[in-house]
């Protein structure tokens, strides 16, 4: 079974990927904008935070800059799409590729260790909690605050305009909504959250690495789709909760899979497990209704 350390570790990364899932919810679900920029904006957030921490910046200030950097990356993708009419998926791939170089430039080397630097977590270790519980506590607070802010935003006039943009752009324009501006704002917001996740991930893992973004989009999607299978996203708050729950379930599932010796799985199988889990999450809700249909047919 799962050790206590592995359990808290899964919660910790699950919460961080919950933030990624929020971002992917905004791009994929709210705006209907398939955005792969996140594979670049996640390490971008980590790189910006790591470099600033090495410079001796306040950890929260450094994290804030990581958010801004993520937003800028998202804005570039959206502007490529809205102003230059490049297909949304392609625009995001272009930004993602470009960010690989940008991240290397920012860090000046492929990875930066943060083991001795003061991070957002440092003061929390003095609270007397168990070492592995500290990041979980802090990230629960961060995720909770983000969830509330996002929820309020989606219910605001601007947030509603953003939801209308993704759902029915023609109607949104007829209501006087600048749909292009809404896409730029939304994709920027989405990648800002992913930048935040990257910055927190680097600080909790003690390192920023230029390759740490590979597959973040798939993990985020896995969390989103898995969460939606558990909690039907009929309202904004349910959709946001589904993101967090999905991300935590996903990390726990991975931890179980890697810990169960019978399965004989190892760390290098992670991407394969992810792909299988995503496939299951996409297929399972359909299977469920299929079975239900079969029963109702028999009755009739």
């Amino acid at each position: 079974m799962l050790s206590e350390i592995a359990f808290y570790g899964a919660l910790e990364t699950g919460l961080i990927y919950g933030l990624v899932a929020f971002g992917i919810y905004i791009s994929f679900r709210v705006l209907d904008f398939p955005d792969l920029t996140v594979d670049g904006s996640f390490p971008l957030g980590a790189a910006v935070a790591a470099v600033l921490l090495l410079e001796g910046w306040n950890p929260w200030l450094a994290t804030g800059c990581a958010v801004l950097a993520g937003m800028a990356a998202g804005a570039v993708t959206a502007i490529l799409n809205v102003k230059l009419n490049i297909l949304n998926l392609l625009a995001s791939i272009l930004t993602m590729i470009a960010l690989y170089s940008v991240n290397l430039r920012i860090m000046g080397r492929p990875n930066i260790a943060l083991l001795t630097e003061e991070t957002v977590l440092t003061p929390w270790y003095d609270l007397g909690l168990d070492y592995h519980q500290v990041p979980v506590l802090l990230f629960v607070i961060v995720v909770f605050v983000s969830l509330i802010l996002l929820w309020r935003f989606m219910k605001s006039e601007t947030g509603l305009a953003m939801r209308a943009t993704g759902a029915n752009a023609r109607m949104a324009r007829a209501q006087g909504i600048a749909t292009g501006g809404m896409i730029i704002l939304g994709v920027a917001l989405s990648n800002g959250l992913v930048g935040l996740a990257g910055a927190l991930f680097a600080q909790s893992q003690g390192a920023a690495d230029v390759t740490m973004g590979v597959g973040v989009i798939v993990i985020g999607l896995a969390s989103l789709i898995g969460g939606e299978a558990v909690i039907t996203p009929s309202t904004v708050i349910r959709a946001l909760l589904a993101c967090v729950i999905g991300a935590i379930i996903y990390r726990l599932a991975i931890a179980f899979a890697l810990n169960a010796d019978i399965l004989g799985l190892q760390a290098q199988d992670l991407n394969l497990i992810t792909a299988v889990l995503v496939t299951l999450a996409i297929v399972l809700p359909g299977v469920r209704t299929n079975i239900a249909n079969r029963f109702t047919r028999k009755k009739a």
Partner: protein
Amino acid sequence: MISATDLRLTFGKGTPLENPALRGMSLTVNQGEFVTVIGSNGAGKSTFLNALAGEVMVDSGQIIVDNQDVTRLPTYKRAARVARVFQDPLAGTCENLSIEENLALAIKRGQRRGLSAAVKRQYLGQFRESLSSLKLGLESRLGDKMGLLSGGQRQAVSLLMASLTPSSILLLDEHTAALDPKTAAFVLDLTEQIIEEQKLTALMVTHSMKQALEVGSRTVMLHQGQVVFDIAGKDREGLEVKDLLGLFEKQRGLQVDDDSLLLG
């Protein structure tokens, strides 16, 4: 007041599919007028409406709404003055937003949107009151998803949304065409009622000559991207579909061979 002068627009210019949709269309609609627009397929009715709304940009000509030249403004910058109901009942509303959220979007048409809550308590009374005027029982279903409503109900709500805030012109694009006859009659009655009560200036495109003569105060016929005739007041009273066809033939000196004009 809205005035369009010598609008010209060609789709697919320089290609084998070149299609001149507007060929010098001019029309002035005065304050409080309710104009019905008819014409055969390809006459330029929808293109004209799209040009007025800003969904398509004209090649040349000028569009003036309330003394402001809007010719080059995109849709969302015209939305404060131009309200619109689409032909497709699914197009005018967002199905995965609730009824109250759709109305909240419409109450801010063309205005700045901030970070305060979109569905405000002070709106709810107004929403319920206007919904109850539809007599569809929707006033007790504010929180329901728009997608749960039928096409006719959605079109009625679209109409309500278009009239929730003042506009210089209301554009109705064959907004009853996709509905069954009974629902279409209901939505048309509602349209007349709202336009009359709020003294709106409106432009309604229709496929039915009968409807075009029965409703509104003025009728305009389009043909090949131009206005071929324009009748109002005494000339229009007592006019029947066959008179309209006669008028059309006299004007153009040609035979009408499009069945769609005779229908209705």
